[in-house]
């Protein structure tokens, strides 16, 4: 069975429709899998690409990856659950990654996170109801000289104070 057939059968079994936009994403994922010569060893790299394309690791996408790499789905799930970068639930359009490294901590990162929680009315680890922001505490981002820092996408916001949180959020709304 070709990979596209495999994909379609997987998706129909899970009760999803493959729309044209979806198909492009799967094609792009297929390119990444091909780049790594379908080696099971490249699983983490392929999951990164899948998450980039689909926003999060959807069950059908995970099953597709497992099938194409000829890995048991349990093993793929084992890897996904081990690494904090992978998410199996939808995330906001923007993930606010608040650094919880030592330098940020001693310079008041906790208060900054609390300010985000208050401003967005969500707790860390949650997503706003409008699907715009997710708030996540992460490991050291390596910008300790500018502590406390947060990252949204590839933007780094540095030397944040609780009263500067509103301004950061406004840039993305």
């Amino acid at each position: 069975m070709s990979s596209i057939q495999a994909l379609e059968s997987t998706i129909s079994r899970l009760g999803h429709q493959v729309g044209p936009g979806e198909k492009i994403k799967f094609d792009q994922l297929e390119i990444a899998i091909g780049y790594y010569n379908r080696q099971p060893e490249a699983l983490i790299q392929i999951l990164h690409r899948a998450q980039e394309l689909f926003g999060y690791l959807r069950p059908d996408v995970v099953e597709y990856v497992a099938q194409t790499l000829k890995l048991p789905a349990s093993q793929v799930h084992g890897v996904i659950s081990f690494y904090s970068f992978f998410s199996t639930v939808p995330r906001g359009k923007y993930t606010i990654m608040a650094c919880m490294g030592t330098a940020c901590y001693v310079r008041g990162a906790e208060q900054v996170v609390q300010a985000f929680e208050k401003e967005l009315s969500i707790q860390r680890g949650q997503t706003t109801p409008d699907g715009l922001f997710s708030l996540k505490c992460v490991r050291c981002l390596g910008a300790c000289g500018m502590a406390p820092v947060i990252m949204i996408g590839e933007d780094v916001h540095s030397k944040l104070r609780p009263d500067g949180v509103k301004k950061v959020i406004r840039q993305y709304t």
Partner: protein
Amino acid sequence: MTPTELEQLQKRAAEALSLRLQKRQVKSNGKPAERVLLICAGGACISCGEAPVWEALEKELVRNNLHDTVHMVQTGCMSACDMGPLVIVRPDNILYQHVKPEDAARIVQQHMLRDEPVTELMYRPHPEADPIPNPDEIPFFSKQVKIVLETCGIIDPENIEEYIAMEGYAALAKAVSAMTPQQVIDEVKASGIRGRGGAGFPTAIKWQMLHNAPGSEKYIICNADEGDPGAFMDRSVLEGDPHRVLEAMALAAYATGASKGFIYVRAEYPLAIRRLQIALEQARRYGLLGRRILGSDFSFGIEIRVGAGAFVCGEETALMASVQGRRGMPRPRPPFPTDSGIHDKPTSINNVETFASIPAIVRRGGKWYAGIGTEKSTGTKVFALAGNVNATGLVEVPMGTTLREIIFEIGGGIPGGKKFKAAQTGGPSGGCIPAEHLDLPLDFDSLQQIGSIVGSGGLVVMDEDSCMVDVAKFFMDFCVDESCGKCPPCRVGTKQIYKTLQKICDGKGSEDDLAILDDLCDVLRSSSLCGLGQTSPNPTMSTLRHFRDEYEAHIKGHKCPAKVCKQLLTYIINLEKCTGCSLCARNCPTDAISRIDGQRKYVIDQDKCIHCGKCHEVCRFAAVAIE
């Protein structure tokens, strides 16, 4: 490309770079015909607005018709993160700090056109001091010795020819054309370099073991999973000078007979990943990686593997599992990776900073390197200076430099006139060093003696406002989170230590708890499977050793001397400052604040107070005092 062609290219490229390397006073030599603006594009400078500064300068140069005589270069990290965005003007050698887009007009019109440097943008040790235009005279830079960061902040990391201009890949050319693999190892051995990732294992011994291992399938791995909170030198090297690491990996492969390499880099460093990809592509195109490197029989290829957010993957056996797409769980050693690593084949794993020291060692000789630093810890170490210190950033100094020199001379001391309390080195595997050890030389062995480690080189300074019990709890919380769960001492022990520390911070600790902590730490240290578990008690043990009085203040006196642990604080309303606005009472979650009868003043009922600190936070008149 052959070694001779590389040499010719080096000469050509160096010429193109000569303007950037000149440093001369303009006044005595007249206006230079050409100038170059070096603009730092390190992570920190990007985060405080390097891109708009670049655009503004570019626009201003074009507007003044100077774009042919004033060149602009985006460089890697210049290491003084606190001064960003940074611009250095050469050949004048003048440094501008905290440059904003609106400063572009002044820099161009005043300095570039009229030859009058902008004094307002120069560095000053304190607001009333005279400006110091020359970066080489600023204490933060002048006391550093750069080997790892030699070209970081001078060259464009996305242009291989600039690295070649600075004698890049010359060590590789020397090795493949004039040295045997054993000679390369001998040179590294003579340098005495020990691994910069944390454990301080001699690099030459590792390479020798891989060299001696039988078979032809061998691997070299660069550990760029820089996970220690507070360390960011690997990131700066990868972002600012990626070719240095690639060259060193090729040297390692040549010396050991490996044919394939992996760089395992954190997903949190997208810019480093991108610059590595560019560098790899360029090195392949120039024949410096791939088949028959520099016309020799030696072939070597490198692939990037991106991590996915697991601290334990910095441990070498876990890292190898992750490189092969599995859960990053460590396994017992032996077998050591040099016997059985990737695909069960011999593998050598070295850290980014270790690799970044290698090209200079091969080029200039191991003996030269061994002359720097101390007898048993040779060379330089890059420390990531952060936390409560005036100048933050990367500091490369000879091993054996004292903590006092780094924090007070290079780092400019503690801001706000506060008192130094402790320096945390080595992240969650390291310890806290108190003021009495400020004059201790920083090297592998002396730090170990006082219960800390050099580790990856994170150096977080803490002032009197940091509670050491809370700091110990912070690191233990980190280890609880990052424990992979495979071995019980780490999985269960970290949690128990955390709970005990939490109890003490909540004011519910007893004197027995200190003995329990000592015991638990001992078990973890001696019986955990991997380095993460074995070293996880270090922050707790070192604070117990050096700051026992703070633990006792929490337990016996029910006080947090640094006023951090909320449960041990008493909130009191200062009646003289209270205006009776009632904001605190309305925000109190337990209705513990009420109006004093007949007065427009409020008071806190200490029995109802849950120490949440809300009243202190909301009061606009600073009337809520903490005791």
